């Protein structure tokens, strides 16, 4: 589904990703771990199409197609979703208004009619329940005044609504208490399917106890230094980055 080859990315002329390779197949869950500043969010941003990231070398293929020239909305229509590490507040735009626009844009891209209000509300209520979000939250402005945990849950809620093919979760687990972590993990596990893939960016082994990854990668200084099965995360938890990488 996702093939990244020798990816080099610079931000403001400063090289961040330096020859990253990654292959994610449909149905798989990949965990991407690494110390602060390793370039994890940079990779997520490049995949989602945020501006300001320059691909200086290498390529990113999504379902065989080079996505580097696609706008963020086109990537979204293609099935890429990024749950942000720091979702922004959008005062004055309600969650309903926001998701109506998003869903209908997705539908328009597929030559489908827009949803009517009843269908929309039924869908939103169903997914809100999945994330144990109070229905009143649908009327609130996007992320405005949300607690850290609410924001993260709202990101996964949006993911559940849009049903993307490739779900990228950027440190969705940080700042979540154990109950919220369980809710989020349950929702993610419920979304797992043979046609969908996940890239979980995380610092902590904790999340991976709830969402079992197929592959674990360790990203350091813009390059994947090691990849392995779930046991790699256990090893990392025990040894820490430095010891782990020096024994490699």
């Amino acid at each position, binding site marked *: 589904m996702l093939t990244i080859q020798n990816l080099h990315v610079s931000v403001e002329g400063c090289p961040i990703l330096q020859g990253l390779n990654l292959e994610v197949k449909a149905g798989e869950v990949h965990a991407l771990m690494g110390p602060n500043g390793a370039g994890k969010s940079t990779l997520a941003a490049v995949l*989602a*199409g*945020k*501006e300001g990231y320059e691909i200086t070398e290498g390529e990113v293929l999504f379902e065989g197609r080079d996505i580097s020239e696609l*706008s*963020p*909305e086109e*990537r*979204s*229509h293609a099935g890429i*979703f*990024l749950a*942000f590490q720091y*979702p*922004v507040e*959008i*005062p*004055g*735009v309600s969650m309903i*208004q*926001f*998701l109506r*626009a*998003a*869903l209908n*844009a*997705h539908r328009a*891209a597929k030559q489908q009619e827009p949803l009517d209000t009843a269908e929309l509300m039924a869908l939103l209520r169903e997914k809100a329940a999945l994330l144990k979000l109070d229905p009143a939250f649908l009327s609130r*402005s996007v992320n405005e005044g949300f607690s850290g945990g609410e924001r993260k849950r709202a990101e996964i809620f*949006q993911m559940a609504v*849009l049903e993307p093919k490739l779900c990228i979760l950027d440190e969705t687990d940080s700042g979540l208490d154990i109950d919220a972590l369980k809710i989020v993990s349950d929702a993610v596990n419920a979304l797992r399917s043979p046609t969908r893939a996940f890239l979980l960016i995380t610092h902590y082994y904790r999340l991976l106890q709830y969402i079992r990854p197929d592959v674990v990668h360790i990203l350091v200084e813009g390059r994947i230094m090691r990849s392995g099965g779930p046991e790699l995360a256990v090893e990392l938890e025990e040894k820490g980055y430095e010891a782990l990488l020096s024994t490699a």
Partner: protein
Amino acid sequence: MEMLKSPALTLEEGAAHLTRLLQEQVALANLPPNLRVQWDKWVQEANLQTLFWEQRHKEDWKYTPMDFLRFPWDVGLARRVSPPFSIPSVLPYAEEVDGVEKDLPALRSLPVPSSPWEALLGGTSSAHHYYIRKEGSLIFSVRGEGGVVPYLLTLSLAPHSVGEVWLFPSTEALMLLRFHLHVGQGACLKLFFPSYANEAQGYLYTILSAHLEREASLETYDLSTSREWRRTEVKVYLKEAGAKVYLHGAAYVDSKTTWDQAIRVEHGAPHTESNQLFKSLVRAGGRSIFQGRIYVHRDAQKTNAYQSHKALLWEKNATAYSRPQLEIFADDVRCTHGVTTGFLQGEMLTYLRTRGIPLEDARKILASAFLAEVIEKVPYEILHTEMYKVISSCLSSPAELSR
């Protein structure tokens, strides 16, 4: 209008011409005898010097283009027109009264002019005085045609009465509207001042003053999407304890449009409260001017005064001036103010786009959202929908280049 297309006068010539024209129009007979002397003095003194030169150097005209002085105006015609939509108010019409015969509160509190403009506007022959005894609404829907139309309105609210004002002045030329309100003890007044994009590009200059007695309250909602040159001066005097004023403004400032707010809220008594909440979205070639002054008298302790103006520049070449001014002479006062000017945040746009919302739609959503903070405070839904409709359709077209 042909006339508007062919500037013919210098600013000085235009000011002199307009002064003479208005002086001829003045009919002080519409004012109570005790006021006539003072007003007459101002009117007599209104000459080029006071009307133009002093004005031009006054701080609160500093950013305002005065091109309306460039035209050889003639006296125009005021025509009553039906409002742009049916008014949702359920209140009966306010009663029109002969101001000179009756002892009206609004005429007693009508301030002595602070500029020759005010004197010339206030002394006009088109003067109408209204009174609300218990409850009532005043709907002013007048179109100025063919030249200068000066208009004087006063409205007096009896103690504990409830009122609404709907102002729909429009003009293809130059309209000068002087409106004074007197809100009696415990009375409540809501004023709606919506204006919508139309073909004509006229000049509308409004001076709105209000005098609030004990526990009186005034809310104003100025919603503008018009293409005019629109200057509104608001002067509110919170004369007695417990008086409250809430001023709201939301503007879509199109290319070639001037939206100019000069506001002065004066706290003259303790335990008074004021809040100014203004937002403007400015297109390339448009100009938004906000000058808000809060003046707190020495004995106006326990006063709350708030002010906020935010301008969103939609394109490069959009202009916004914001100037908060605080003059506080009491020490036990809560006062906050904030002004911001900036472009749409790329972060927000990206967020919407990563969810699949196309760029242009995302921009429109954020435009409406920016003004929503003010629009959603308007108590009538119809005013929201009209405003959103215009914003959405106007944003679909590229900004016209400025003249």
